[in-house]
C-alpha cells in the first residue's frame, strides 16, 4: 500500500519536471544555417553569401602577373591588375553590386537574390541564390554598346555539410550579344567549390569551373585560396590560372594553364561597412 503511494508521488514529480523542459523547448523553431561562406566571393566566383540589409561591402581584388614571367618581372609581382567593386544589401534577400576590372576594362553590374535557405533541422535543405550580371566592355569608341554587352546567369547552390565543410555548385550561363563566326552566343559551365574551415577565422577554399561544349578551347579556371577574417575585414590570398576576375573572361576566355606555369597570385580585401 505504501509502495503505491510512493510510486504515485514520484510519478507526478517526474512528470512535472519533464513538462517544465517541454515548455522551454525550441524544438519546432526553424534554425537557419548561417556562415556557409565568409564573404561573397569564393576565389574568383560568387559565393552564396549575401551582404546584410543596409551593409556596404567594398571589395578590392588584386591579381599580379604570372609566376612564369621570369625574374626580370619579379615573377609576376611587377604587374598587377585590379577589380574594385561595391556590393550593397538592399534587403537581407537582395544584393546589388557594381564593379570594374582593369584587365579587359570591363564594368560589371550584378543583382543577387536569396531563394532558399538551409536549415539545421531539415537535412535535405540547401541555400539557393540566383545571380545575374551584365558585363560591359569599355572600348575607346563606344558606338554600338550592344556589341560590348554580355550577360551572366548563375544559380548558387550551397550547403554546409558539417562544422568545417561547405560545398557550392554553380550552374552558369553566359550570353554574348556578339560573337565571332563559329562561336555560340550562349556558353554553359558548372562551378564546383568547397570551403574548409581551419578555425573560426581562417578557411581554405578551392574552386573549379567545368565547361560544356568548349568550342573555343578555353582553359578552365582552377583556384585555391585562404580566407582570413579579422573584425570587419576578410582577406583572401589565392593562386589561380586566370588573370581575369569576371565570369565571362575567367571561365570562357582563358588560355593560361597550370601546366604551363601560368600561375597568378592575388589577394582580395573585403571591407564591410554598416550604413544605417
Amino acid at each position, binding site marked *: 500500500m505504501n509502495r503505491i503511494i510512493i510510486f504515485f508521488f514520484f510519478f*507526478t514529480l517526474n512528470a*512535472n519536471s519533464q513538462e517544465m523542459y517541454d*515548455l522551454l523547448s*525550441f524544438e519546432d523553431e526553424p534554425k537557419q544555417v548561417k*556562415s556557409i561562406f565568409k564573404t561573397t566571393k569564393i576565389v574568383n566566383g560568387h559565393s552564396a553569401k549575401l551582404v*546584410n540589409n543596409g551593409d556596404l561591402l567594398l571589395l578590392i581584388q588584386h591579381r599580379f602577373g604570372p609566376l612564369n614571367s621570369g625574374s626580370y618581372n619579379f615573377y609576376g609581382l611587377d604587374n598587377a591588375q585590379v577589380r574594385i567593386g561595391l556590393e550593397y544589401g538592399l534587403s537581407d534577400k537582395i544584393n546589388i553590386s557594381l564593379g570594374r576590372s582593369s584587365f579587359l576594362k570591363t564594368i560589371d553590374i550584378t543583382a543577387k537574390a536569396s531563394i532558399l535557405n538551409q536549415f*539545421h533541422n531539415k537535412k535535405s535543405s540547401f541555400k539557393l541564390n540566383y545571380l545575374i550580371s551584365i558585363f560591359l566592355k569599355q572600348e575607346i569608341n563606344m558606338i554600338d554598346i550592344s556589341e560590348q554587352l554580355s550577360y551572366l546567369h548563375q544559380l548558387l547552390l550551397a550547403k554546409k555539410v558539417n562544422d568545417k565543410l561547405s560545398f557550392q555548385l554553380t550552374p552558369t550561363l553566359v550570353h554574348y550579344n556578339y560573337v565571332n563566326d563559329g562561336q555560340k552566343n550562349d556558353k554553359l559551365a558548372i562551378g564546383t567549390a568547397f570551403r574548409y574551415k581551419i578555425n573560426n577565422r581562417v578557411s581554405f577554399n578551392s574552386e573549379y569551373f567545368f565547361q560544356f561544349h568548349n568550342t573555343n578551347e578555353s582553359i578552365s579556371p582552377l583556384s585555391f585560396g585562404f580566407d582570413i577574417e579579422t*573584425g570587419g575585414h576578410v582577406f583572401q590570398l589565392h593562386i589561380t590560372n586566370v588573370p581575369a576576375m569576371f565570369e565571362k573572361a575567367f571561365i570562357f576566355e582563358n588560355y593560361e594553364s597550370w601546366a604551363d606555369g601560368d600561375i597568378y597570385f592575388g589577394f582580395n580585401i573585403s571591407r564591410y561597412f*554598416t550604413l544605417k
Partner: protein
Amino acid sequence: MKKVFVIINLFFFSCNLSAQKFFTENAKITFFSEAPLEDIAAINNRVKVVFDESKNEIGFQLMIKDFIFKKPLMQEHFNENYLESDKYPLSRFIGKLSKNKQDYVAEGKILIHGIQKKIKVKGNLVKDKSKIILRAEFDIMLEDFDVKIPKIVMYNIAEEINIKVYAELNSLNE
C-alpha cells in the same frame, strides 16, 4: 474500498501539485559589454521562462540567434565567431529559487556556449494575482564559457559581460 479512496485522493492531489506553474515565451534578456573602443549591446525578446511555485524550480531557455544587435555585422560575428550558435544554438539556466529576507536568490546551472557552470543570481520577484514579475542582474566572465577574444579586438570587447533579465510570467492552469 479504503485503498481506492486513498488512490483517488492521491490522484487529485498530484493534479493540484502542478497548478502553480508560471510561464512566458517573451521574457527579455539583454547583455552589455563596455570596452575602451566600443560598447556592445544586444537584446533577446524570445526567452522562455517556467517557474514551478510548488517546487521553487525555475528555468530559462533562449536561442542565441534571437539576440538582436544594432549592427547586423556585429550580430553575424557574435553568432559565427564568438558564441558559435550553429554548434551551440541554446543557452539556459535551471535552478531553484529561494528567499533570503528581502532578496530572492536563484541558484543553479547556466549553460552558455556548450559549457555549464554553477551560478547564484540575486533578483527580485513580485507576485500580482496570477502574474509574476521577475528581475535580475548579474555578470559573467567570457573566459568561463570558453568564448575566445582575439587580441586584435581586445579593446572592443570586454572580458566581463553584464546581463539583465526581465520576465512577466502568467500562470498556467491545467
